[in-house]
């Protein structure tokens, strides 16, 4: 076992496919469709007016199947990923993505299902969405979720829209949303998109919002607060109940950015903290792959009084709950075997449909129900863990983060802004320690790459100087964490500036010139 995973390797270079083209070559099999070539009128103008017809075909590459396979395989080898390296990107919860979930989401009929199939034929699919909703409600203590939002930011937007609509209907024109200065950039951006003015509140010294400070901002203009808990320092907002009380007394809502929900999964309910709305990033807490930037799912959950505002469509169930799932399967099986509809409905207790009858709905967020392929992976993840293991997720995530906090706190002495007490699922350091060795946060990030680690989130939150934000997740071992800590230690005490400015050196490309990229932008080949 080498000291660090990053040692050496070979990188295979690769041209854009457009430069590997040979005229007339293609890499796809054209379906025969049972057509006889002679039977087809050849020219498109036999079907549509010639003035619409495109004369120059788009200049796509002209390459064979093996060329495409080698090309993208080589490209893939230039990425670091969760499956190959420790990827402690703070606030992103880069946990292991279980392989069985990939296999389930790739089941032939599920992935080929058109979203507008008649509902009687897809009862078990609707049941998955329905049941997963119930699980999320129990884990958060909220009343109902909608899976319409496609990612975290869309979840925030839908939640804020709900708040906006609530006040519009009440005839109150509350224009402001309070947002801590340490919040994710999406929070103020979503507030503006939803028609609010975000108002920044300063975080207190201990990394927490202070209820006393909050009170200064309270007025009838305040529609709500967007609070990340644990916040982006990984610190639990100790005043959360007090904050919620102040907001509620003012008739305002408490929206929780659930990007960091991994700290609570199976351990604590946000309803006990006074939260009214939360978005859950299924691609973070619920193990679905991040896909190199997406897709995700940002399910939005609300308290009872806001249920009627949720986006549409949603899965509506009638009749009693069907716990073992047999009804859903029976209805669908019988329907497909062409028996009478009414009989089906009568013999089974539960029937699921896609409904739009939410009285005050904010409307649609997406063309169809949800990012189903993400939802099904997340649901499979929960079923795998079961109630016996679910609480260990947040427990081990918090243990691992505190282990890093403690060990690095010693190595980067004086760099932990919140030395007192425990963090939750992630910890944050400033650049004081590494600066003593002349190393900047950016250089630390690039140096870590050569050791074989993906860098942590850097320069966020903004109010920590040269922030280094580390989220190990529950799926990493002490051994890996020790290895990472050792690398940081070497950088802190041994690495020379001359090496730091040249790093990374073991990657496909060296330090990327982002100034040039922005000065003379090239968007396409």
């Amino acid at each position: 076992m080498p000291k660090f995973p990053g040692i050496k390797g070979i990188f295979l270079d690769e041209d854009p496919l457009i430069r590997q083209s040979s005229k007339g070559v293609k890499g796809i099999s054209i379906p025969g469709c049972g057509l006889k070539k002679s039977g087809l009128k050849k020219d498109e103008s036999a079907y549509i007016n010639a003035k619409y017809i495109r004369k120059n075909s788009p200049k796509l590459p002209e390459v064979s199947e093996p060329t495409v396979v080698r090309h993208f395989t080589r490209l893939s080898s230039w990425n670091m990923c969760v499956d190959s390296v420790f990827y402690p990107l703070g606030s992103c919860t880069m946990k292991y993505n279980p392989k069985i979930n990939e296999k389930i989401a790739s089941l032939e009929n599920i992935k080929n299902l058109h979203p507008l199939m008649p509902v009687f034929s897809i009862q078990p699919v609707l049941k998955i969405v329905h049941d997963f909703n119930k699980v999320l409600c129990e884990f958060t203590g909220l009343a109902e979720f909608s899976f319409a939002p496609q990612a975290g930011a869309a979840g925030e937007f839908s939640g804020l829209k709900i708040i906006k609509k609530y006040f519009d209907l009440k005839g109150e024109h509350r224009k402001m949303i309070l947002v801590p200065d340490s919040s994710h950039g999406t929070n103020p951006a979503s507030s503006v998109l939803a028609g609010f003015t975000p108002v920044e509140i300063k975080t207190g010294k201990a990394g927490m919002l202070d209820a006393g400070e909050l009170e200064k901002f309270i007025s009838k203009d305040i529609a709500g607060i967007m609070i990340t808990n644990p916040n982006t320092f990984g610190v639990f907002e100790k005043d959360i109940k007090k904050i919620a009380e102040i907001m509620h007394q003012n008739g305002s809502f408490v929206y929780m950015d659930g990007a960091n929900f991994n700290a609570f999964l199976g351990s604590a309910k946000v309803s006990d903290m006074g939260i009214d709305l939360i978005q859950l990033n299924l691609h973070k807490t619920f193990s679905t792959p991040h896909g190199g930037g997406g897709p995700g799912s940002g399910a939005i959950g609300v308290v009872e009084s806001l249920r009627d505002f949720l986006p549409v469509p949603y899965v509506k169930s009638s009749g009693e709950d069907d716990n073992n799932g047999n009804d859903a399967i029976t209805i669908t099986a019988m329907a497909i075997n062409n028996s009478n509809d009414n009989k089906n409905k009568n013999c089974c207790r539960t029937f699921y449909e896609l409904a739009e009858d939410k009285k005050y709905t904010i409307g649609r967020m997406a063309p169809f129900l949800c990012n189903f392929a993400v939802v099904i992976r997340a649901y499979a993840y929960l079923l795998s863990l079961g109630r016996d293991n679910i609480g260990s997720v947040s427990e081990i995530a918090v243990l691992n983060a505190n282990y890093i906090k403690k060990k690095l706190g010693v190595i980067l002495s004086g760099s932990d802004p919140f030395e007192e007490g425990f963090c939750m699922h992630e910890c944050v350091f400033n650049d004081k320690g590494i600066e003593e060795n002349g190393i900047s946060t950016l250089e630390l990030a690039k140096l870590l790459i050569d050791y074989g680690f993906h860098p942590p989130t850097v320069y966020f939150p903004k109010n920590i100087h040269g922030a280094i934000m580390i989220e190990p997740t529950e799926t990493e071992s002490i051994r890996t964490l020790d290895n990472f800590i050792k690398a940081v230690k070497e950088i802190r005490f041994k690495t020379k500036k001359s090496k730091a400015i040249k790093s990374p050196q073991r990657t496909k490309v060296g330090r990327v010139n982002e100034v040039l990229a922005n000065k003379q932008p090239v968007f396409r080949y």
Partner: protein
Amino acid sequence: MNNFRYFQNSKRDISKLYRILGVKDKKELFGKIIGDIPLIKESRLQTLTEEMDEGALYSFFLNIDSIIPAKNKTAVFAGGGIYNHFVPAVIDSLISRSEFYTPYTPYQPEVSQGTLFALFEFQSMTAEILGMDVVNASMYDGAESLAEAVLMAMRLSGANRDVLDHSGGLILISEGINPNYVSVIKTFIGDTGVKIDTVKLDGKTGQTDAADLKSKIESGGRVLAAVVQQPNYFGVIEDLEELEPIIHYNSHSDFSASHFSDQDNRNNRNSEPFFVVSSTEPYAFGVINPPGFYNADIFAGEGNSFGNYMNFGGPLLGLFAAKKEYVRQMPGRIVGKTKDDKNRDAYAFILSTREQHIRRGAATSNICTNSSLNAVRAAIYLSLCSKSGFKEIASLNLKLAHILRDKLLSGGIFEPSYLGDFFNEFSMKIKKNKNNITAVKFIEEMAKKGILAGIAISESGILISATENSSLSNIEKYVENAKEVLYA
């Protein structure tokens, strides 16, 4: 504490961690952090069962999968924003590489060149297909993308949201836009001062009515954008050549601007509406002229047809493109080509000062996570298609849809809704039949026979689509069963 297989730390490791941190157990640890917030009692959880072993879990979903009437059990002739295209095995094989699907957004370009390069190729190939200057690295889906396009047109019109709240402004939306897309636009801008007005379709052709568009643009209100879909929701190919000069009235000398003479800023580009084109089926641009050909300012639509499964409606692939002079107002990530410190080609996200993680409240959009993996799928798919395959498959769509429509018409059971040209989707009306069957009922009955016959769009109207996945034998099966359902 169990040793579940996703956790690397053993029970001993966990004990060690507690020892090092100086706390006894979870109760004490969480107590010190979250105070009096109660801990969940796992054994009391009602909605979750005990852990399922991998075999049982797979069987559970396999059972569901075996019941659902998709793939080999149902011939899909429904589109309506998502189309049943063939997905080559190469895509699943390549995309199952962890290096593509397990990283996140390429914040560190040196260790993300694979994703960045693939996205750059995605941007390049889709820009070619759309005939547009710049395509971004993806949005969520066509509907959200179009809503963002409308917001961008509002920004480009020089009016920020506060101003628009007071002064108003108008977005003209063709009746030929997918109704779900219109709903999403309303969710985004419904409570601003900007109003939405609908431009009607010509009752005969099903194309956006040019005269209605013209009169609405000239009616006096400030029109910020005019939005059309190509081909439109009913499958009809729009005559963008006719519509464009009506929208870009200042740029065309043959247009009489007399009506606008009272406006000081008539020569200002900003007083002219932005021409926004959408599409749910950009495969059409393998056969028909793309939006860029007709001088579209912004394109926003759905790219799921390129190498992605239907997945019961998501995730999808939002395409977003614009003329390059508007790039700084675009939402979403954009990959650019640059150099590294040794002057080698390298790729990175560019113009990120538009984005929320830098600009916060002043960002062009709140989007962060997008549909990156779907975009990489599209890049692989379009590479496989290559220049000739893309055109060939597009052409096959066109022909099969026409064969299906001809057969349905000659069967005497349907009549056309519109006479305009179409690509791979068209709308029909069920003729009065002896069983008095409505469109909804027809689709339900056909589904029982293993055919998703389309989407009901009115009492008797159906939207039907054919793709390269629609074999001649399935087309014949459709026609035979339709006769049986309506007349047996």
